[in-house]
Structure formats: C-alpha cells, structure tokens
C-alpha cells in the first residue's frame, strides 16, 4: 500500500489480529489445566523516511504471564496437599476399621465379655454361663483377627495403589509416564525456543504435568537457561533435560519396608500422596497393628495367668498349681492360632489370637475358683462354688494395663490422629488454593475482565462501523455532481 498512513494501519492490523486472536485463545483456555494467560508483546517498527516518522507496530512475541516464585509455591503446595489429603484418606479408612462407639465395636464386645464373667462368678458351675463366656471369648478373638486383617488389607491395597512402577494402574506408573512427558516436553521447548517458535502450548502442557507430579511425589523444580525444567524429589534428580528416571517400588507392605527407588537402585524419600502411602504402610498401619495386638496380649495374658493359677468348679487345677495332679489340667483360654496350648505375645498377636480348642470343646474348663490358700477352703480335685478367680477375671475390665484401657488408648490416639489429618488436609487445601489463586492472579484468565473488555470493544467497533457507513452516504450527492 502506497499510503504512508495506511501502511501504519496495515502493520497495526496485523498486530491487532494477533492481539485479538490471543484474547480469544485466552478465553477458550479458561478451563484448561496449567494454562497461563498469553499477552502480545508489541514493538514499534523502526522510524523511517525524511521525517523519521513512526511506522506502526509489529508483534514481537506472544509470551505467558507466569511468576517463578508463585509457580514454585504452587508446586510445593500441590505436594503438601497431595500428602495431607492422602493421609486424611488413610486415617478415614483406619477409622472405618474401628467402628467406635457402636454395638459392633471391640469396646462393646469387651464389655459384654466382662459382663459374662461377672454372671459366671455368680453361677460358677452353671453350664449356660460357662458356655456364654467361651462363646464370647471366641467372638472377641475373631473380632481381633478381623480387625487386624482389615488393617493388613488396607496396607496391601495402599501398596497396590502405589503399584510397581511398571505399566500397571498404580500411581507410580502414572508418575513414570509424567516424568517421561516432562522430559519430552523439555526437548520440544528447548528446540522450539532456540528456533524462535512459540512454545507456550508445550509450557502449559508441562506445567499441568508438573502439577500432577507434585501432588504424587512432592517435587522441587528449577529451569535451565535453555528452558528445560529440572525436577527433584526426595533428594534425587528425576528429570534433567530430556532424560527422565524410571521409578520402581521396593520392599513390601507385608515386611513394612515399602519404598521407592530409581531403576538404578537409588532410593528416594518422596512426599506427596505416594509419600503418605509409604508412611501409612510402613509406620502408621503397623503402629495400629501393634496397639491392637497389645490389647490382644493384655486380654490373653491376663486371663491365661488367672486360668493357670485357679481351679475349675469341678476342682480341676490350672497348670501353675497342678503339681502332681493326675486328672484334667485346665488349658490356656487364649492360644496362638494352630497351637493347642501356647500363646506367644507379639506385635501381630491380634491376627493370630484364638480360643483353645480344648476349652471351646468343654467350656466348664475355666478357673472360676481361686487356688487353695489361707483365705479359702479350696482343695485341688474337689468341686467348689468359690468364684474369686472369676471375679478377678471380670475385674480385668478396670485394670490400668488391661485390654480395655489399652483399647481406649488406641481409639483415643486414632481420634486425635484422624482429626489432625483432617485439619492438616483442610489447611493444605487452603494453602494450595491460595497458591493457585496467586498464580492465577498473574497467569490465569480473568473471565469478567475479558468479558467487559470485549463488550466495550464491540460497542466501539459498532459505532466506528456506523460512522464509516455514514461517509459513504455523504458521498452520494458529490458523486452525482462530479
């Protein structure tokens, strides 16, 4: 175009087209995860001609509005939120394993059992009372087994959730996929950037992948001069340039040493949701198993000790006072599964506690009477209605180190930890929301502002179009005259 003014207009038109297209692009990507608002960077054309007049503008580049500090804060917050939410979820699952307070809970079953023993103490030779105690003892052991099994299953399911890192449905496989994606995007961004291409789409995609990775692992990032993003987690570099590490799981939930390492064997200590899974599998759940087993051990230990040191209503003695007695010697009430007489306390006793088959077969084999002594007239081998030992058994309900006290302590700890996890999760979500909000205030697309801007521009365009059409009309008379 020969007209100087019009060539300015023409250059402006190009710039303007890019700017409007960019605005439309921003709007169409309002809901795209990781999308950063683009802005057109205009630069004036060099002045030319005798008057050194300006020659309009050109589009220098389209760049993304992001801020490295907010970006880092957002990544960190994603990691904290991932860990807190997963911990909260695990604690909720553990709470579901202990339905307290309810009639199905262990607390109610323990209470019923102590009540059964009190009834037996009032009627030490009554078969019905003896039968009830044996049946409820068995029910208690099964409840402890079932609770322990549920904790183990929860642990196994968390291990499955993490996965092996191979192409399964585990989060570790997703992490490997994302790490590869970031490495490939790094390659594209560095190559595109050096070739002067617009790499904002790749950056958006990479940002989205990084956000997900942060939630899974908890990561820190840094950007190289060429535009590649380096990713570290748990002290190990996971992505450098176009090279990504492959992560695999090590150990197992069963051995309480589930871990994550690179394929070359370098272990890392991740945070994020996977870090929370590892903590749950290796520490939290074994902790509750141990506390539950302490309840089982207190129950079995207390009753077996009283059983060994007392006499049944028919005069049969416990093992500790049997001496040379040739008749039936009372069996342990609680034994290890698969054993006829032995009970070995351990941190997994809740899983293995059982009622002895000999006692279940003959519920009268319970030491309701005390051992012969100065305070009674009991004689080994002679029937007695003394129920001092049954009362002592029932009194375990209030013992300071008894099963009830230990179980209440477990439930108290669980309540506190679950509440803490819930509070932390809420706080972490708020933190992540704030971080995302800060990032959005810089790079996000403000829909309302865009809408107002567009409506104003639309009105101005309409008025301009009408004014220009009026020029054509005003030409009519002149055109007819010349």
């Amino acid at each position, binding site marked *: 175009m020969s007209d100087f003014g019009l060539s300015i207009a023409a250059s402006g*038109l190009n710039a303007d087209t890019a700017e*409007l297209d960019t605005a439309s*692009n921003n709007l*169409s990507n309002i809901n795209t995860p990781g999308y950063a608002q683009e802005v057109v960077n205009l630069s004036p054309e060099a002045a030319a001609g005798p008057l050194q007049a300006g020659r309009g503008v050109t589009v220098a580049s389209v760049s993304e509005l992001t801020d490295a500090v907010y970006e880092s804060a957002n990544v960190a917050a994603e990691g904290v939120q991932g860990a807190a939410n997963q911990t909260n979820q695990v604690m909720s699952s553990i709470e579901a394993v202990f339905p307290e307070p309810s009639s199905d809970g262990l607390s109610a079953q323990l209470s019923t059992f102590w009540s059964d023993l009190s009834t037996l103490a009032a009627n030490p030779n009554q078969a019905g009372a003896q039968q009830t105690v044996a049946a409820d003892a068995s029910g208690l052991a099964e409840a402890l087994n079932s609770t322990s099994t549920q904790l183990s299953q929860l642990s196994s399911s968390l291990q499955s959730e993490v996965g092996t890192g191979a192409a399964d449905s585990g989060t570790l496989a997703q992490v490997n996929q994302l790490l590869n994606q970031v490495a490939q995007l790094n390659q594209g961004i560095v190559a595109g950037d050096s070739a002067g291409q617009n790499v904002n789409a790749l950056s958006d995609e990479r940002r989205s992948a990084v956000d997900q990775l942060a939630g899974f692992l908890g990561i820190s990032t840094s950007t190289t001069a060429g535009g590649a993003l380096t990713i570290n987690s748990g002290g190990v570099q996971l992505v450098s340039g176009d090279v990504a590490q492959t992560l695999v799981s090590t150990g197992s939930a069963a051995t309480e040493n589930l871990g994550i390492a690179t394929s070359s064997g370098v272990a890392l200590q991740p945070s994020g949701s996977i870090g929370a899974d590892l903590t749950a599998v290796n520490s939290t759940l074994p902790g509750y198993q141990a506390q539950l087993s302490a309840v089982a051990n207190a129950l079995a230990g207390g009753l077996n000790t009283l059983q060994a040191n007392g006499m049944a209503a028919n005069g049969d003695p416990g093992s500790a006072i049997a001496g040379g007695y040739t008749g039936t010697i009372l069996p342990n009430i609680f034994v290890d599964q698969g054993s006829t007489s032995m009970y070995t306390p351990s941190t997994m006793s809740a899983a293995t506690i059982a009622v002895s088959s000999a006692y279940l077969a003959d519920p009268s084999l319970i030491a309701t009477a005390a051992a012969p002594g100065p305070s009674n007239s009991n004689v080994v081998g002679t029937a007695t209605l003394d129920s001092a030992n049954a009362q002592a058994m029932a009194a375990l309900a209030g013992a300071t180190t008894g099963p009830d006290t230990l179980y209440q302590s477990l439930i108290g700890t669980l309540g506190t930890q679950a509440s803490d996890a819930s509070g932390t999760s809420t706080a972490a979500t708020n933190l992540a929301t704030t971080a995302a909000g800060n990032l959005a205030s810089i790079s996000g697309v403000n829909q309302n502002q865009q809408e107002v801007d567009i409506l104003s521009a639309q009105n101005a365009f309409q008025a*301009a179009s009408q*004014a220009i059409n009026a*020029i054509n009309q*005003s030409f009519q008379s*002149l055109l007819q005259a010349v």
Partner: protein
Amino acid sequence: MSTEDLLAELIESLDAELEQLTLLRFRLVVLGSLVAADQAFWLPKSVRELQATTDQLRLIDLRRAAATSGITEAFLLDPEARLPQIAAQVDDGWGEMLHDRRRLLLEQMANIRSVADLTISALGRRSTLLREALGFLSGSGGSSYGRQGPTRPQIVQGAM
C-alpha cells in the same frame, strides 16, 4: 452575479470540499490505526471527530450544490448537470480548473473508500472474533472455539 463569479464560487466550494475530504481521509486513517492497534478506548473520540468532519462536508456540499445550481441556470443546462457538462460550456481556463478539481475529488473519494473498506473489514473481523468470544463466555460456545475444541489456538500460531 456574473457567470465568472458563479464559476469562482463553484471552484471555491470544490476546493473546500477537497480540503474537507483530505481531513476526512486523515481522520479515517487515524480511526483505522486505532482499530488496528486495539486502542478501543480512543475510538469514541475518533468517531466523534470523523462525524464532525462528515457533517462539515455535507454543509460544504450544499454550498457546492447552490453554486452549481446558479451556473446550470445561467448556461441553461440540466439542473442535474455534472462537472464535465459544465466544463464543456465554459472557457478553457475554467474548464481545465473544473476538470482538475473533478479528478482530485474522484481520487480523494477513491482513497477514502479504500481506507474505509480496509477499516470496515478489520472491524468486521474483530466483531466476529469478539462474537465468538462472547458466545464462549455465555456458555453457548463459538463455532471456531469451544471447551472441547482445539486445546491450542491455530490462529495465534498462524498469526505469528
């Protein structure tokens, strides 16, 4: 009033019309540049200036029509006679001046039309884009863009 006075008045009104057309063209270029540079904030001011120039042009055109009417009457010409017909009836000197003004007027009007077409086209393209954007915002979606549409804009890449 002599015919020479009438011709002088016509030439004078044609010169005024040319001057006003030049101003109109300038203001139209300014408007087009503002549209192109996405300076919507200044558009209303530019539009007002353009409208004032157009109004002034209409007044000058009335003066030109009055002068033309006096001449066609004096030369017993058709009241709708155009400048070439008038030029054919007057001395060569006046005729040449009228032909010159006519050529300049036509050139200027063609230039203005060209700028106007360019600006109208730019406005139309923007209006379409903005309609798409507004459609997207109101949830009805645009024909070119949409939530399920291309994740990245081909237009921006194409425009770069």
